[in-house]
């Protein structure tokens, strides 16, 4: 049983519930001497009862005005999921198709296909915390980890707009890692990196990234959108080609393999393959995750007003049957048989 109120400040009016003990809605009757009215238990009881009724009526109406409710508590539940940062490439080439052309007619750009498939992915994972980061020349923190799916979808929706120039994966990864909490072994961190190009990571940045991965502990999924005719992650180098500059994708893949983290690479050359890769990530990343849920609320305002009705009815009844002692022009000669002065 949890009770709450929406407008606590209204409760400042509660001292008004003391008013029935200071005053009365009933008629005052002046009596010449106290001795004329003998102590009367019935009268005293009635007076007390009516005071309590008045207090109840005031208190209940004030409570009703503060909008009381029952429930609405946040509770922690355990579901399956993970903390996922979507790290999206926003370089200009993402706006081309898998064939490397500007989309025409019904063709879908790499960014649009990714956006559509990520939306499905997010929809299938209701308990995940999602964060979104983007990178081109600089990394951009789009949305910190959140359980507000509408906001995540709005950020993914924005991801197929015109991109910027370059592909700076290293700084993007650094940004994505920094969005997690460090040293939390109970949380499961996942980075889903979506990019259509490799990049050379300089040795200094390589060491920094390695340290960051050790600190924040994240699984890395590299969804590589391969454009027709370009180098792939798993290509074997030809003669004179075995350098990071000539084959950045291959070297990036090999660097990720040395990080000592759970790492998987998917090379997709069509939207169907992207879908398959995302489905696999979905199946792999199923860990216990704690999420919060708000219990439904029940409004008690109506009940409070209704229960104020009863003491009000009582007060009204007492008022209506209030006896008027005969206004005596002459001097009291005898005490009345029953004092009903309240």
């Amino acid at each position, binding site marked *: 049983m949890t009770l709450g109120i929406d407008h606590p400040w209204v409760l400042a009016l509660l001292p008004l519930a003391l008013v029935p003990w200071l005053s009365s809605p009933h008629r005052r009757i002046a009596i010449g001497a106290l001795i004329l009215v003998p102590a009367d238990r019935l009268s005293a009881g009635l007076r007390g009862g009516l005071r309590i009724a008045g207090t109840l009526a005031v208190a209940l109406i004030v409570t009703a005005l503060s909008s009381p409710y029952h429930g609405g508590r946040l509770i922690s539940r355990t579901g399956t999921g993970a903390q996922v940062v979507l790290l999206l490439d*926003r370089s200009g080439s993402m706006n081309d198709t898998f064939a490397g052309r500007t989309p025409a007619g019904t063709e879908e750009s790499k960014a649009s296909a990714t956006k559509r498939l990520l939306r499905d992915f997010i929809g299938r994972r209701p308990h995940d915390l999602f964060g979104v980061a983007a990178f081109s*020349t600089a990394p951009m923190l789009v*949305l910190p980890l959140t359980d507000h799916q509408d906001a995540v979808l709005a950020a993914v929706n924005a991801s197929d707009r015109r991109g910027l120039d370059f592909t700076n994966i290293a700084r993007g990864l650094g940004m994505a890692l920094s969005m997690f909490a460090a040293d939390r072994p109970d949380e499961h961190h996942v980075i889903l990196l979506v990019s259509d190009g490799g990049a050379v990571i300089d040795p200094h940045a390589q060491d920094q990234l390695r340290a960051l991965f050790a600190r924040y502990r994240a699984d890395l999924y590299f969804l590589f959108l391969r454009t027709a005719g370009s180098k792939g992650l798993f290509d074997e180098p030809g003669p004179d080609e075995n350098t990071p500059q000539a084959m950045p994708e291959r070297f990036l893949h090999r660097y990720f393999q040395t990080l000592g983290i759970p790492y998987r690479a998917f090379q997709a050359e069509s939207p169907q393959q992207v879908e398959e890769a995302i489905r696999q990530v979905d199946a792999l990343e199923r860990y216990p995750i704690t999420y919060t849920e708000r219990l439904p609320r029940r409004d008690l305002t109506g009940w409070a007003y209704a229960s104020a009705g009863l003491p009000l009815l009582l007060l009204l009844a007492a008022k209506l049957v209030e006896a008027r002692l005969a206004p005596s022009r002459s001097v009291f000669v005898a005490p009345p048989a029953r004092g009903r002065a309240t």
Partner: protein
Amino acid sequence: MMAPFAGLIRRNVRDPRTLALVTALVLAIAAVALPRLPITRDGVRVLVVVDITGSMNTRDYGRDGAPVSRLAVAKEAVRDLLGRLPCPSRVGLALFSERVPFLLFEPVDVCRDYGAVEGAADALDWREGWEGDSHIAEGLYGAIAMAQGLDSDLMFITDGQETPPLPLSGGPVFDGKPGAVRGVIVGAGGYSLAPIPKFDDRGNEVGFWGVNDVQHENHFGAPSPDAESRPGYQARNAPFGSGIPTGTEHLSSVREPYLRGLAGGTGLTYTHLEDGRHLARALLATATPRPSPALADVRWVPGAGALAALLAAYGLIPVRGWRPTVPGFIKAVGRWS
């Protein structure tokens, strides 16, 4: 047995305190029975674009005696603004650097997803800028087109410092329809010149931009008419003169006349960046109202009436002076709901 009661009741009904108790009871019952009333609420739908170029790092605001950068003030104000918008309102966020706005997310409901939007606004950082240049006018026109595409109003927060300076022939021309997108340009920065912090490529602050570090004059287009009198002027080889132009482009202040001009040309309004309350006022004054149906709980009206009547029965509110306040009360209720 009933007859004396009937007589009592008949006599007591005329007591004003009886009337007050009856009123309290009737109003309490009315409060139970009153359904939620359908009303329309006006929210806003706005795209907030924040300039994150280098000059926004200039620390020419003060908070609690310490200098604070324009970007920090802008972030704080935007976060505060989110909580001040009428529900349901939707806010999208974009960065501006170089010459285009970069959309972070489309407008989302800030009443439902407040935490997410607030977190995103808090995460804005100049390090996210992808180029050192800031072509404000081009960025503004791009932001207007973006806001139009998102069917939202625009709030563009910038200090108005074009880097490099505009050529003498003037900036780019707005080819949209002025007023098609409503909104406000927010000028960030102080009114006197302040030095701009300089950072190395790892993001560490390394002093301030010096007079010889920046371009003070744009050499695209035609030279200024006084160029002939400059030292070393030669019509073909040195039409701008041979000297290195100097100026105050390495310092920064809010370029208010320029921003007002841009606002005038695009049908936006202008305001200076102060705080969230200021932003909310400027935005709500110009924003397109977006009505949406809602249900209003007005049970507090009869409820408050019941309380007042009950207290009146106890003599706390003098009944005689009551009558003229009733129409005033009803009028006030009409204004509120």
